[in-house]
């Protein structure tokens, strides 16, 4: 143990910070990570208040644009393809005369919901699967991991594409019963619900492996043994001792996976299997306009920049979190 580490340890003892607080303080010291975090908070605020959905839900009243100048689907055929800086349209308009600034700002909602929901779904499924596998008897554990290995060989993105094609066709045709309810939810969300399902359900495999590996290493620690000696049951051990200790690395790895979810959504929207137009997904905006890049470059470069900045921020935050939770990697 280095002298510095020992000093750190002593400091911790004196101040009595919890590991989580400690990690948070280390995150604040990570400049790029903090910057990424601040940017994401800004993006979250934009997504929440881009129009008055939330105030309207609390106080009543109609939903109208708040931060965004216009509604994302407001078409104006006489003001097509205006360059940035045109009065009334700070970032110009697209091929249907829709305000690009508004569409880009509304786009935060799509990317963020995908990021949050896909990450949560994959975290919950992966953690559950991994912890169960880590605690199960060897034979069950082997079978569960074999299943994961099996799925690992699958070209999952291709199944996501097929699944999305299925969902979109079903939602176009309409359906009854339970599927009908889901289709209605999907329509209300502009085609996002099925994206959540397709992305979340198929991305838990890496998380399951990580959670299992972490569980196995934590399981051998003395404090688990002493908890067992004190008569704690499996459930108590999982929730009081295992989960808090493995959550850090799992959240870090999930944060690092978020840019992947965001770009997968953009990719699916780009090939026409993502959100339903006119929902302003950045990927959809690029795919609608990249062919005109010679004449109207801003139409695809602006949503592209928004997409790049958001993924960049999540990458920075993920890096910062990794360093914060695992100080050994600090500076690496």
């Amino acid at each position, binding site marked *: 143990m280095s002298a510095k580490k020992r000093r750190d340890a002593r400091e911790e003892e004196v101040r009595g910070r919890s590991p989580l607080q400690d990690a948070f303080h280390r995150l604040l010291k990570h400049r790029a990570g903090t910057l990424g975090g601040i940017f994401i908070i800004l993006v979250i605020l934009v997504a929440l208040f881009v129009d008055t959905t939330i105030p309207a839900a609390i106080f009543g009243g109609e939903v109208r644009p708040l931060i965004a100048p216009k509604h994302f689907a407001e078409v104006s055929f006489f003001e097509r393809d205006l360059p940035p800086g045109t009065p009334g349209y700070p970032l110009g308009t697209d091929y249907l005369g829709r305000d690009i600034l508004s569409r880009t700002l509304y786009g935060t909602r799509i990317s963020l919901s995908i990021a949050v929901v896909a990450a949560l779904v994959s975290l919950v499924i992966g953690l559950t699967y991994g912890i169960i596998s880590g605690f199960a008897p060897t034979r069950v554990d082997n079978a569960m991991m074999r299943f994961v290995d099996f799925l690992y060989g699958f070209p999952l993105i291709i199944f996501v594409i097929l699944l999305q094609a299925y969902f979109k066709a079903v939602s176009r045709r309409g359906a009854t019963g339970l599927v009908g309810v889901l289709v209605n939810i999907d329509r209300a969300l502009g085609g996002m619900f099925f994206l959540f399902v397709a992305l979340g359900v198929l991305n838990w495999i890496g998380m399951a492996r990580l959670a299992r590996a972490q569980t196995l290493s934590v399981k051998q620690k003395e404090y688990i043994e002493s908890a067992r000696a004190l008569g704690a049951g499996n459930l108590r051990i999982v929730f009081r001792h295992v989960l808090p200790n493995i959550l850090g690395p799992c959240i870090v790895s999930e944060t690092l996976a978020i840019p992947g979810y965001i770009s997968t959504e953009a990719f699916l929207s780009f090939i026409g299997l993502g959100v339903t137009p006119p929902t302003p997904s950045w990927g959809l905006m690029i795919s609608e306009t990249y062919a005109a890049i010679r004449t109207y470059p801003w139409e695809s470069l602006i949503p592209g920049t928004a*997409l*790049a900045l958001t993924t960049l921020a999540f990458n920075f935050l993920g890096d910062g979190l990794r360093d914060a939770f695992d100080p050994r990697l600090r500076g690496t």
Partner: protein
Amino acid sequence: MIQYIIRRLLWAIPVLLAIMVVTFFLARAIPGGPFDFAGEKQLPESIRKNLERKYGLDRPMYEQLGKWIWDGIRFDFGPSYASRSQTVNDILKRTFPISFQLGFLALLFALLIGIPLGTIAAVKQNSPIDYGATFLAILGVSMPTMMIGPLLMWVFAITLGWLPTARWGTDYTQLYLGFFPNIFSAKFWLHAILPAITLGLAYSASIARLTRASLLQVIREDYIKTAYAKGLPARRTIIVHGLRNSLIPVATVLGPMFAGIVTGSLVVEQIFGIAGMGKYFVTAITNRDYPMIMGSVLVYSVLLVAANIVVDVSYAWLDPRIRYD
């Protein structure tokens, strides 16, 4: 070792079979059939029925599934439903080499840029070079393909006019043995540069980050100190003793990365108008062209499975302590 490879190959069989079955049910679950429309017009019921009978779509499901799997095993999918004058194999034979070249060049670019960049960053840790390289790497990871493609095209093809904008694989046609392009032709490289860089950039960046992180851990190991203490030159220590050991995490991500390159190629092929497999795969889904869906999914899956096996086998070469038995 041989035993391990054989076992992995055997293990690939149920995986591929399962993929075929899942693809079958997913493709069939999509509402609508391949013969609902002829162009924009809806086909009359009787013609649709006849076409479906001709291609065996009126048979019971299990029979169709059996035929489908048998087709997959023989790798002969018959005519494509969307353009019935060509077989799926013809289309794959024409388009797969182009997609493969694109993916291969992108991966090569990613490795040739990523590993040296990561190594330099790690050796010069916390220097301006390191910060610059790390920043570039994070920037590269964060730039989505669909952003880089139009951007590069705009700068290098439209504004500067140095490189062609599109039509890779159509302007030059000669392929040796039906697969290898003429790598001595300037035309090939001119066409290949932009798409390959677009596709490979993000991966070169993530390889650079991984190489750096992993090399930083490795150069703190005792055996590196030993190597230095024995008086080995720094360059040799880093490259032979350090880099080789730090490549294991890099090799681990090559498998998933390969899958990512497959998806990325769908976007890149669309942006640069490349006549590769990706376009056919996406249109096959919209057309409900079942044999074409099956053919392309199977090609992608075989590639992915093979890539995973190669990656796993390469561990043993990178770290002789890893033994498979």
